[in-house]
């Protein structure tokens, strides 16, 4: 679409990492741009333009979505969790600790998306098999780690979280 007419703005209200926000946005604004540019939550990254890389993964009402493929207006009224919301009271989430312990990140660009996909996996399936883990992050591209240590990190976090019961 190309137009010379100014585009009418639409209000969007969301709760992100427990915090309520209201903004007026262009209807074509992507959720990932909304998070990064409007809310300045730049931990959610962009790595592609065909919904392939998953660097933009966030939890929308608990479900993992690629926020480059959701319009901000579609998220109106929802609860969103981003990587910035994983740490609680100054304590890293077990997934964050496990990624570091097991060297599941190098450049760290894919990491926020990986963490969110893994988070959704462990919420639904506390005892994932290695196949489950591979499947859960199949939409999250990592170019640095060859995935090996990401598998290990997710497994370790699952064990840790189960221990906590």
């Amino acid at each position: 679409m190309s137009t010379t007419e100014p585009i009418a703005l639409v209000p969007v209200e969301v709760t992100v990492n427990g915090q309520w926000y209201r903004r007026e946005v262009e209807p074509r604004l992507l959720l990932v741009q909304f998070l990064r540019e409007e809310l300045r939550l730049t931990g959610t990254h962009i790595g592609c333009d065909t919904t392939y890389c998953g660097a933009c993964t966030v939890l929308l009402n608990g479900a993992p979505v690629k926020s480059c493929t959701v319009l901000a207006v579609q998220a109106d009224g929802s609860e969103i969790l981003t990587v910035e919301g994983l740490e609680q009271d100054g304590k890293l989430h077990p997934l964050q600790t496990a990624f570091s312990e097991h060297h599941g990140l190098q450049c760290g660009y894919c990491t926020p998306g990986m963490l969110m996909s893994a988070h959704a996996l462990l919420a639904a399936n506390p005892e994932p098999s290695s196949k489950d883990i591979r499947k859960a992050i199949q939409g999250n591209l990592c170019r640095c780690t060859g995935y090996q240590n990401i598998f290990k990190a997710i497994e370790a976090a699952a064990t840790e979280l189960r221990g906590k019961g």
Partner: protein
Amino acid sequence: MSWVGSSLRRKEDDRLVRGQGLFADDELGAGMLHLYILRSPYAHARILNIDTTAAEALPGVACVLTGKDILAHCDPFMQLGPSPCDKIRDLPLAIDKAIFQGEPVAAIAATSPALAMDAGQLIEIDYEMLDAVVDAGEALADKVILHEAAGTNRTWHGVYEYGDVEQAFRDAAHVVRIPRLHFHRYASTPVEGNACVAEWTRQGTVDFLCNNSFPGFAQQLLAPGLRLKVDQVRIRTHDIGGSFGNKIWNYVYMALAALASKKAGGRRVKWAELRTEHLLGSGHGNERTFLDTEVALDSKGVITAVRSRHIDDCGAYTRYEPLGCVIWSQVLPATYKLRNIRIDFTQAVTNKCPVVPNRGYSRMQQLWFMERVVDICAHELRIPADEMRLRNYITEFPYETPNGCVYDSGNYPAMLAKAKQLVDWDKWQKLQAAARAEGRLLGIGIGTTLDSGTNNFGQAQIMNPHLPFSGNAEVCTMRLDFDGALVICLGTGPSGQGHETATSQVVADEFGIDPSAVQVRSGFDTAWNTFVGHSGTYASQFAVTGLSAVYGACQKMKAEMRKLAAFLLKAPEDQIEFGSGAQGPEVRVRGTDKAMGYWQLSNVINNNNAMLDASLADVTLNIRHVYRPPFSVPDTKRKFGNLTLTYAAQLHIAVVEISRETSRAQILAYAAVDDCGTVINPKIVAGQVHGATSHGIGAALMESFNYDESGNLLTSTFSDYCPITSLNIPDIAYGSIQTPSPFSYNGAKGMGEGGGAPLHAISAAVQDALYESGVIVTGSHHSPPAIFAALQEPNRAHAVSVK
């Protein structure tokens, strides 16, 4: 205890797992403009007319740039190559002709990315399509010429000849001929695309926040291009989301953003590349064809000579090329002991995306070639794959290659033994025999490779004798901060390799302190940091070049601290020792309880210096050390000299099964053994091996930049290019041996690039699976269509001959 050698948890992780890294695209700011680049849809087309009126009238558009603006404000970027490369006009936008699909033709800066894109659609461009040439061999015929001023597509030619090749062929027991081998085009494509924020300041200087991975070099290219002095170009980087070499030449786009800022009156302009733009126009790996290869062997299957003709395809512009025409010769004979070699090397431009140094740059192509040669000879002479390698491996070190490179250390037979054990070689041999009996296609392949690190830039003079580059260097600055922390800045600008952590380990050992007392500042800043032209992260250079700079700075800092402490504690200098006390890092007088904390030393120098006497005038606790490896300029006529300081090695074994139904090659088992000398941080090293392995497996089985004959890129989105995912990567059995380098202070060898071992191993495994079907593996890409085609028309009758 020693921190070096331990898997210290990375310091970088604290910010990165919280999503608090600062990547170039994370830079936000009120009033920032966004750049959208309009690119040529054609591989070769004359630009007849550009109408920007409607775009410029769109509210929110700050400026539109076309070739006219570029000619008025910009000079062509320096090309490294000799004539005719100097006639190539390389500018941030095409002027009157586009020469690859995706070449920038116009650019728009507007108040939002979407608006800039809208404006892009209002620009009207008339093109006249021209014939495209997409094959380097055809390009050499000069029927279609890309750079008319150069008059030819040939950008470089040279002959590398060593030993007595003719004699070796006369004496040969067997001669194997392989008419054509081809290494395909792919790239390691970091998940973070290229990005920068540019500001043309009121002082007439330019400020960049970007993710260029070789900023010392970029600055020297950008300044003359933008008609500025070098110190008027400030380049900063912070976190970089992977580079693998691909971010070396994004300076072309940085210039465009800077020119947009200039035209927009100095407003900050951000450019964040889209993935499709990245795949179309941010740099591909070198594609190479190997023609008329002849191999001389003795009666035992020992290779005595190779002669061949290589044609490298560098895409539309040379830029960093034709350096690749020399870089490969760092590993001329690969891991094999033959002494007689003649390689005729030519490079050509084609109507495709320009190439960029991609992980394993130029050496990997040569290593793959040599691995194919060895592997094909083994099959043709019926010598078992492992036995063939053992008969041909170099076994004595240091080893001087026929062209004067010195392999520092290694033990390839030990790596082979370890990899065989990891993959369970004997089991797979049996399973293979059983599978074959059932008519299944199961293959086992060995790939041995080198990762040459810390290169001698003097080799650039083999390519162009007029280039003022040689040697190599890296810088470390270190100061003792007010609170007693050792604060360190590096010139390296890493992109995920954990330099903050490895540096802390080295410093902690040298001072006998905890790594937490060491602060390594991340990022690069040409205005405030010291650096050298070689500074950057590329070509496996950190473990030796970077850490040697750190080590040297430690020694200088300790000398100053020792002198100061001796004065303050009234003891001889040789009685001062370093370590940690109850209060943290301290210096103390041996055998006494006299000690001072680091912050006390720093305080004397920085706040409380009246008690110091003149003998301490040179103590500043602010150190700069430049490490320069011991190189000399190679003999450019003979193409002879030591081109790299260290040679890490990798040996991979792949077991694949090819489905007769789908032609898909599936990896059943995979082992990777690494030798990078003394290991600084085992976890980081293993991580690098995993990463390089996944790039190689992805390239061998999935990833390829395919162009049609008109120069249209058919794999220009991730959904078409299919980078390897968690579902496609096998479990990697990892092992290592350590043969310390005698040439580095710490015994380490640079190892980040990995040398493309998976390509060698998978090509060999596919060969092993298909040999009985009459197929000779002559390419490096083993996608189902490629395997299907090979099985449809077995090529052995014309792809190889033995005499």
